[in-house]
């Protein structure tokens, strides 16, 4: 059912998530669609595009090629680009029009691979999903293409789901790196910037840390297929770093998530981690609302998936403090304390210079609690 948005922006789309992940890891990416599609990525979803654009191009799909189902132009243009850049693999990611006309994205990638002799993956994104879906699909596409193998016990820990869509400039990840180092382990696959070899060695680690929803399904898959345990936690405060260190030591325990009068709106894994830290620091419970996928492993009993603005308007009335991207505040009751926590997948680069990321977040939350008198 269609969703009405009158105040919020549309969120970072699935093909942007895929393009970021695949180009960061070393692929040459074609966003297959009309020229307008690429503007999301270059103008809003990749904050690095101005200073250091990656190998992300657009197929400039035209009406006649869409109508006639002409994939040949795409394949030929990809071949020419590969002659320039000689990538370790190529990727075709889909947009709404290929989806509408039934274009076989993975089949086109297979055809491309036959023509150019370079591994190629097709990622069937379609512009209806959000960034985490695209990152998730990209990981599965690469896993299928390059067959991740199990070779554990190397003292390494993987980080799954780290991207600028949730972590901005990534400075918070240094905390996680320190926690892993303190546990006398090293990072195996830490982010797509580590490259394709690190990804194909992903099975050569003892365990995984899913730091956002983007990494959850792949972490679950690795747990089931390669028997790799995982934890879902973002590096927010001592509650999470201690949990992560405990997990690396091999300790496992069931958590109880306390519900409360604080609503955190954001990525489910990141928000759940903030909930954990708030509880540790203040003893107060929180609930999570998310537009980006809810996971059983991180779900509190009152956590909820939001579909549209009305969902957000209605749920926010039930709380005393709200934490989330500043753009959500336009839909929250005006009298409620609102703790800004920029989520680039929502507001792009709008708040990147405002100092309202993960660093210092807990101090902002505690200040709101102090001022509002919530107990």
């Amino acid at each position, binding site marked *: *059912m*269609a*969703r*009405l*948005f*009158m*105040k*919020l*922006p*549309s*969120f*970072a*789309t*699935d*093909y*942007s998530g895929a393009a970021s992940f695949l180009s960061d890891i070393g692929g040459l990416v*074609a966003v297959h*669609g*009309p*020229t*307008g*599609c*690429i*503007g*999301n990525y*270059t*103008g*809003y*979803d990749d904050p690095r*595009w*101005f*200073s250091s*654009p990656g*190998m992300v*191009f*657009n*197929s*400039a799909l*035209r*009406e*006649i090629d*869409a109508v006639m189902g002409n994939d040949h132009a795409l394949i030929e*243009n*990809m071949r*020419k*680009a590969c002659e*320039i*850049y000689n990538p370790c693999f190529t990727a075709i990611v889909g947009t*709404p*029009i290929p989806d*509408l*006309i039934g274009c076989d994205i993975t089949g086109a990638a297979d055809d491309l691979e036959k023509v150019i002799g370079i591994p190629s993956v097709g990622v069937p994104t*379609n*512009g*209806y999903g*959000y960034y985490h879906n695209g990152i998730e699909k990209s990981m599965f596409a690469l896993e299928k293409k390059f067959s991740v193998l199990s070779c554990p016990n190397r003292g390494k820990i993987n980080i799954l789901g780290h991207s600028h869509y949730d972590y901005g400039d990534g400075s918070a990840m240094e905390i996680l790196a320190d926690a892993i180092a303190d546990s006398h382990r090293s990072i195996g696959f830490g982010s797509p910037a580590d490259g394709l070899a690190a990804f194909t060695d992903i099975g050569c680690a003892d365990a995984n840390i899913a730091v956002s929803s983007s990494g959850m399904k792949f972490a679950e898959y690795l747990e089931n297929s390669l028997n790799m345990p995982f934890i879902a936690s973002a590096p927010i405060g001592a509650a999470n770093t201690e949990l992560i260190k405990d997990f690396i030591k091999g300790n496992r325990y069931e958590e109880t998530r306390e519900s409360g009068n604080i609503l955190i709106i954001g990525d489910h894994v990141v928000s759940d981690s903030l909930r954990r830290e708030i509880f540790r620091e203040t003893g107060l419970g929180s609930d999570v609302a998310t537009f980006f996928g809810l996971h059983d492993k991180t779900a509190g009993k009152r956590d909820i998936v939001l579909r549209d603005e009305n969902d957000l308007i209605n749920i926010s009335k039930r709380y005393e403090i709200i934490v989330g991207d500043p*753009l959500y505040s336009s839909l929250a009751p005006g009298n409620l304390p609102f703790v800004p926590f920029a989520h680039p997948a929502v*507001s*792009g680069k*709008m708040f990147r210079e405002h100092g309202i990321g993960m660093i210092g977040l807990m101090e902002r939350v505690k200040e709101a609690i102090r001022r509002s008198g919530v107990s």
Partner: protein
Amino acid sequence: MTDGLYFCSASFGGFGVARVGADVPESHLLFLCPPSCGRHTSLSSISLGYRGRVSYLFLEEYEISAGMTEDALYDGVESVLERLPIRPKAILIYFCCSLYMSGADETGILEELRRRNEDIVFQICRMNPIVAGSGPTPAQTIHSRIYGLVDLDGKEDRRVNLIGSDYPLDGGCELPAVLKRCGWEGPDHISQKNSFGSFRKMGSAGLNLVIHPDGRLAAEDMSPKIPFVFLPVSYDMDEIGDQYSKLFSAIGSETDLSEYVAETQKEIDRTKMAVGDRTVAVSTSSACAPWGLVKALIKYGFNVESVFGESSAPYDAEAKRWVLENAPHIREIDTENADMLKAVGICGSPDISVGFNAAYFTKTGAVAPLVCDEGVFGYYAVNKLMKMLAESIDSEKDLETAMDEYGLVL
């Protein structure tokens, strides 16, 4: 459009189709599209301060493929009207590529919307870049659809409309004074209209002056009632004189322009003295006739070294031929080509860049921030360009900040 994969540089973009529609006073815009198609316009509408004028009805995949969009739209319009604090006079429905390709029945939809809301004027606009190279551009279609709302039944008066330009003329432009001396008023730009009624009265003007090709289709549509002249913004003194002659012919009156010619010539001389032999790179995104701009700069004695971007407008072809013949050293760089990814920041080293595209690829600090002939026509265009050139050599800009301030939208 480039041959091969398309590289979309960070400096690409323009006014944006949503902003064009938002110029219609007392209107509301409703985009009907998959979520991805609303990302750039919704974020830019927040940044540029008109988010309250735009709504998005994000469709599910099955709704488009199963032909369920019409009911979703009718329900969506009702929801929008319930939530808006003031009932709009007009609603512009924007169809994306998927709606366009799925063959949505625009006429039937408009009839039903009008039947349900008799006090509101509805229009369907298209945000469908998939038509690139095969028909009117989305910007041309949107101008056409918007001006399709004006009231053409009013009596002709001695007013001129400015059509196709995204901006009204700057205060310093001589055109209003020239028209006044000829006994005419204007030019009226849509953004200067403060009510839907006054916008609709643009249909009673005596002449449509089209200074950008985006408005040509709209002017042609109105031409049975309102004659038009197509005078794409020029920076060439001789051509500007010819354009004024055509304008005077169209309005049946003329006036002496020698004072403007003399003042502008002085500005050219002063700027040439200040700029000297510094090399200049020109972005095609600066002007709707970029080769004409390059030709003019060469004629004035400036040292143009390169042109960044493509431009194949028929009205600019003669200027391009002249430049390639008379200044064969000038490099023409297709910035949309896939190999340009390697060239970002290192593609030449001009002293001054006109427009953002050249500045981005060369990392030139001295930028004359001219985008799409913003706010200019006639001799004022030359004056403004000269001032920008002169100022650029004294005040280097942070390019990303300058682009954000302008609000480039792809």
